[in-house]
């Protein structure tokens, strides 16, 4: 198992911009399935060869937050959620999209959403 290696900053920036500008809902689906079920907002903030990182905030609903699945407490606070690439550690930038799509597809299945053409 290799350690964490970072991609070049412009590669990361381009992917983050694409995810946050073109697929904001996808971010939310992914974080809801992989650790932050009560998330109301999600922004992808980083990625490397091991996984992606999302900034997640729950709603302001005071009744939420009892779910043991959230690691970072709910209640409008923003927390960071790291999710490993499902296919394992990757090496090339070309693999990033595949891994994000795989996360999205798995999240859709778990949340009872229709599969989507990518």
């Amino acid at each position, binding site marked *: 198992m290799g350690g964490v290696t970072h991609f070049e900053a412009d590669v990361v920036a381009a992917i983050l911009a694409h995810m946050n500008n073109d697929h904001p809902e996808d971010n939310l689906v992914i974080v809801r399935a992989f650790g932050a079920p009560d998330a109301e907002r999600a922004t992808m903030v980083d990625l490397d060869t091991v996984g992606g990182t999302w900034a997640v905030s729950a709603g302001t609903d005071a009744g939420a937050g009892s*779910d043991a699945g959230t690691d970072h407490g709910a209640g409008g606070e923003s927390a960071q959620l790291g999710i490993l690439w499902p*296919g394992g550690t990757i090496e090339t930038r070309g693999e990033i999209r595949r891994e994000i799509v795989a996360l999205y597809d798995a999240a859709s299945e778990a949340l009872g959403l*229709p599969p989507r053409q990518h």
Partner: protein
Amino acid sequence: MSNVIPFSQALRERTWSGHGESEGAGFMTDLMNGKGSRDDYISLVTQHFFIYEAIEAAADRMKNDPVAAAFISPKLTRLPAIREDLRFLIGDDWLNQITPLPTTARYVARINHVAAVWSGGFIAHHYTRYLGDLSGGQVIRTLMQRQFGFETNGVGFYLFADIAKPREFKDTYRAQLDAVEWDAAERERVIDEVMVAYRFNTELFVDLAEAKAAAAA
């Protein structure tokens, strides 16, 4: 050329519920995030058995239907793999040890009722299950293998040995959906039936969560 959007696209857009159903999703997401047990996974496979038994019996009845036949492929058939998975997970006596949850029983009744008489309804249920298995199911398999130390035994359900390129298979499937000559009213009926199928799947997760809670109590 008409500017009517392809049926597969309309289907996706109409069945898109935003962010997913949160109720009951905890069962699946816990399982995917390492917070579920091997027994939880067995419960899921068990319910798949009843659902695919119904869908694949329906496929057998529909194999000569002029519309439905195009969607039916032995490459998709899941029941033999599910049987082997359950034998591996539970033992040779697996069939005597499993029962359908209430939602599964209703889901199966719906499949039996709808697919017996209506090709569009059959396709709605077929699409909902198999395209999901070919999409998210593939990561779920990886996660289950990693978590429970499975190789191929136990996760045969997710292994489509005869479909080398799931993405191409799905693209062809969607093209076939777009090619069916349904009128607008029939398209609506099919979309409605897909939504019924998704509802069953969501309610199944709720049932699984409740059964788990009851067993722990």
